[in-house]
């Protein structure tokens, strides 16, 4: 069998792998958005900017301090998470009593500031970030060649997504979190520090974005604009999946990444818009999203 539907299998599997990689980032980012939305009722427009920040922190650690990939994988999410905690404490927390749209507008302004600042200092061109030594090279799987680093990104993001799902759905802390999402006032009355949980949730959500940024740095280059176009696709992913379920956000992320990869093989012109078209179709058939709940 030399072709599948008239496409050489190398190209098909290559694009599917690329789709899976993109899907990993969609999943990590939409997971963070869903966790934040559940707790804060805010759509974090700055998510793309914070993803970019994560990549830049890794790059700066490497170029200025010589700190490599593995430490960056730990440090960059911590830095981004801490930055998120500061944002939540000083700015976002003032808006909870108002309409949720103000949260969206505030984080939009923050995204402009963060991206504009990095663009001002580092220009729009991408900075290369080397693949760590341990993950260089690749495996020949017989039907395709799998670069080690790409395999690692898929595995790492899957593990993080599943761990997050486990933490929220199966642990005691997660139970508090879910309870506070349903009814914060009642949970607070039981003596649980809800404002602290809100801050921690936001910090955790944006740390996920920072982690995604570090994972992305060796694949895509590190550039100030890497987050802004991605975030709009992720918004569409969130609309398609609905924000009701953690697992739904993850599955939708991977699924749409794969679909995008398939589109690149069969009809490349539409690959940029296929996610938006699917969003329109889902809105027509199931307005609450595939995994969402009708209010």
């Amino acid at each position, binding site marked *: 069998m030399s072709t599948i539907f008239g496409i050489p299998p190398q190209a098909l599997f290559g694009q599917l792998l690329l789709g899976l990689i993109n899907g990993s980032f969609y999943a990590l980012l939409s997971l963070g958005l869903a966790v934040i*939305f559940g707790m804060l*009722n805010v*759509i974090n427009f700055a998510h793309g900017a914070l993803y970019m920040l994560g990549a830049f922190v890794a790059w700066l650690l490497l170029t200025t301090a010589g700190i490599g990939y593995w430490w960056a994988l730990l440090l960059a999410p911590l830095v981004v998470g801490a930055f998120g905690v500061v944002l939540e404490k000083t*700015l976002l927390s*003032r*808006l909870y*009593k*108002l*309409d*949720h*749209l*103000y949260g*969206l*507008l*505030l984080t*939009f*302004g*923050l*995204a*402009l*500031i*963060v*991206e*504009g*600042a990095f*663009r*001002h200092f580092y220009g729009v061109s991408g900075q290369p970030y080397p693949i760590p030594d341990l993950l260089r090279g690749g495996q020949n799987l017989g039907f395709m060649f799998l670069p080690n680093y790409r395999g690692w990104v898929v595995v790492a993001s899957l593990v993080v997504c599943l761990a997050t799902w486990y933490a929220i759905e199966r642990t005691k802390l997660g139970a508090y979190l879910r309870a506070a999402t349903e009814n914060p006032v009642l949970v607070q009355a039981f003596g649980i520090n809800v404002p602290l949980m809100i801050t921690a949730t936001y910090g955790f959500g944006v740390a996920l974005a920072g982690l995604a940024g570090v994972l992305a740095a060796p694949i895509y280059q590190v550039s100030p604009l890497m987050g*802004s*176009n991605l975030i*709009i*696709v992720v*918004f*569409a992913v*969130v*609309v398609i999946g609905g924000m009701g379920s953690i697992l739904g956000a993850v599955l939708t992320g991977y699924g749409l990444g794969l679909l995008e990869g398939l589109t690149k093989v069969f009809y490349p*012109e539409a690959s*940029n*818009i296929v*996610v*938006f*078209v699917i*969003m*329109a179709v889902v*809105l*027509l058939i199931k*307005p*609450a999203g595939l995994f969402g709940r009708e*209010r």
Partner: protein
Amino acid sequence: MATEIHAVRRETAAPTTGRPSMPGLVALAVLLLVLIAAPYVLYPVFVMKVLCFALFACAFNLLIGFAGLLSFGHAAFFGGAAYITAHTVKVWGLPPELGILLGTAFSATLGLAFGALAIRRQGIYFAMITLALSQMVFFMALQLKFTGGEDGIQAVPRGHLFGMIDLSQPMAMYYTVLAVFLFGFLVIWRTVHSPFGQVLKAIRENEPRAISLGYRTDHYKLMAFVLSAALAGLAGGTKAIVFQLATLTDVQWQMSGAVVLMTLLGGIGTLFGPVVGAALVVTLENYLAASNLPVPVVIGVIFVACVLLFRRGIVGEIAARFVGKRP
């Protein structure tokens, strides 16, 4: 749900009742005089830019301010119409008024399609859906043949209005733009003060209540969306004639963000706020372009300051302080 909408009203409600108020009419007269005299004092192209963006912001404000719908994708209508107008005038050789009309019609049609999809969800989802749909238009503008990709459509001839008035004359162009702006502004004015506008406000305040009173709120929201999209298209088409240019900048999501900022800064839900906001933002961008400061950072800071400190916007604050806020 009800408390959520209540919060919007507290922050954005303008002192608009069924009839145009006296201060409103005075403000309109002052605005008219200022705009007639403006090209003798200021650079006409600059004022025309302000007018195009002011109309764009007013169209956007019709949705957020009077129907409570935050669209984050209005660039699609503004830029889409700019492309259609530029193409029909340059390639098909249509006169400018027909080109602008076709651009407006295109945006209205696009608004019907996007609106029908977006009103299926509310609040934050509405904003995300409109943003995603407008990004689709952006990618189409990037890839389709007639839009010229990264270059856009350049050197669009201004032509002769109704075959008589030569628009390459700055003053002729200016008063044409002013007429277009006033037309759009008065349409919005009339809409807001009409029974239709009253129903929109009812939906903004309490949609379940409006439904229970027997209004088909989805129809009203969709009509408001189409009207807003059409007027945004009118602004975009006019802009394409004035600057003889339609580019990707017009359809980018940053443009959607800019119009949100203009409206927020001037005052959401006020008739004159978007005009003031557009004038300020365009002036600021002109000023910053000459300086060394990064524009997005300054815009972002103003955004954050508006959201945190004065959510009523400039005109909203003035109205609340001097005219007195009516319940």
